[in-house]
């Protein structure tokens, strides 16, 4: 998009939407939508409250534990499926099912298995995030040019060397993409987990705000969460851009 000869960054249009929001909010058309400025003000207040801070800590902790587990388990599983046909045949179906199934339905079941509070939320994040990481890692491993592997073998690479010096690196672009998508799904998982089972952290705040019609606070929290999801995704994307050149180089 160019305007008056200047390139206007795409995300700038979000500002336009914010202005629209402000106007609609001021017109007082829908009680659910306070003016954007009021939401910002509420956000400033919100971040100073103890309950937001503790909710953030709870949520972040569950999120990072869940993500760490998903990454630590997902990458080896993806590599295994990428390299071993039997593993792929055995697990592929389930990974595919779980990666696209409405996992929210399972969240209540998690509670039975993991108890309440943190563990279940961690499990929800894990469950939401892992499958796409597995799938992408698997695809990354599958995309590795066979000649790169043959190259390593022909120079006498041991199994460990093959995995640590070639496969992990060569699949890195897809692994990162998987982690990025996994993070986005993980954020959804943490919120859904907190809303559906144990009402803690952000889920509790959301419920409190929406049930009591504290709309400015509700939207403030929403914006903070959206912002978080986008920033995390953006960070990974930066890392991806660093390795992008060899994503293409591997075709």
């Amino acid at each position, binding site marked *: 998009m160019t305007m008056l000869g200047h390139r206007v960054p795409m995300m700038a249009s979000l500002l336009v939407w914010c202005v629209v929001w402000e106007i609609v909010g001021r017109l007082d058309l829908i009680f659910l939508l306070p003016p954007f400025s009021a939401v910002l003000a509420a956000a400033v207040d919100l971040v100073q409250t103890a309950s937001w801070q503790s909710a953030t800590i709870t949520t972040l902790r569950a999120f990072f534990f869940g993500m760490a587990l998903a990454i630590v388990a997902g990458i080896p599983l993806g590599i295994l499926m990428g390299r071993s046909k039997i593993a792929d045949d055995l697990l592929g179906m389930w990974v595919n099912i779980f990666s696209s199934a409405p996992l929210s339905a399972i969240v209540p079941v998690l509670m039975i298995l993991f108890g309440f509070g943190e563990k279940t939320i961690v499990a929800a994040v894990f469950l939401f995030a892992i499958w796409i990481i597995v799938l992408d890692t698997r695809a990354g491993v599958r995309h590795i040019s066979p*000649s790169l592997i043959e*190259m390593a073998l022909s*120079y*006498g690479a041991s199994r460990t*060397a093959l995995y640590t010096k070639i496969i992990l690196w060569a699949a890195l672009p897809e692994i990162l993409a998987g982690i990025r998508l996994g993070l986005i799904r993980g954020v959804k998982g943490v919120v859904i987990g907190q809303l559906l089972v144990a009402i803690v952290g952000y889920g509790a705040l959301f419920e409190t705000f929406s049930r009591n019609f504290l709309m400015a606070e509700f939207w403030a929290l929403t914006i903070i969460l959206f912002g978080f999801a986008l920033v995390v995704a953006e960070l990974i994307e930066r890392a991806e851009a660093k390795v992008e*050149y*060899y994503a293409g180089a591997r075709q």
Partner: protein
Amino acid sequence: MRASVVRNGPTSVIEPIDSIVKVRGISKAYGNVEALRGIDLDFPRGKLTSLLGPSGCGKTTLLKIIAGLIDADAGTVAVEGKTVTRPGPERAFVFQDFALMPWATVIRNVAFGLELRGTRKAEREDIARHYIAEVGLASFEDKYPHELSGGMRQRVGLARALSVKADVLLLDEPFSAVDEQNRRKFQEDLIRLRTNQNKTFIFVTHSIEEAVYISDRIVLLSPRPGRISQIIEPDIDRSGDPERIHRDKHYLDTVDEIWRGLKRYVE
């Protein structure tokens, strides 16, 4: 100068004085695609032998069996008298698509074979630097593959193969991803390199001119299942200006003869 053309059935292999690689009765099928059938072949030490044939005739398969990367269904390959079961330090492969690690610099790529053998870093980088210079890439040590042209990338692949000091170099269409003019340059370089280094080269190509231009010996394979259809020794004098070869009558005769032989397989 004479173009010694030897037709042979599977048994009548010409036995050169000293052959470093001996292929005996190799057959290979992928599922129900029969790629190679009963290949008997000897590769003379210190010579460049080309494998030439229509697409899909099993050239790559044969080369990889020699490299120990693929197991044959039947038959054996022996290098220096020892039967090949897997890749070994006396053979090095140069890949059609270069097979460079895009995340590693030129020098790390070249030194990779040594890295896998556990050579110390300083030592392996010295060796690598030597061969990088040898293939004409001095000063590109710290570049990454994506910063190089196709021709330069293939030189990196070649330097890597040279740096492990293998006796036998296996090259699978090393120039097919290199543009025409660079390719020509590279062919001239390879001819020079072959005389300097006392290595045995086994070279797969699609290009008749290329095969005739650089080879001491050309093995023609028939379409799938690949069998040896002809062995040609162009016996061209390569001592002078490489450009002169292109006008050598024997060169031209050999190219035409091969072309006439292969034409029927095309489309």
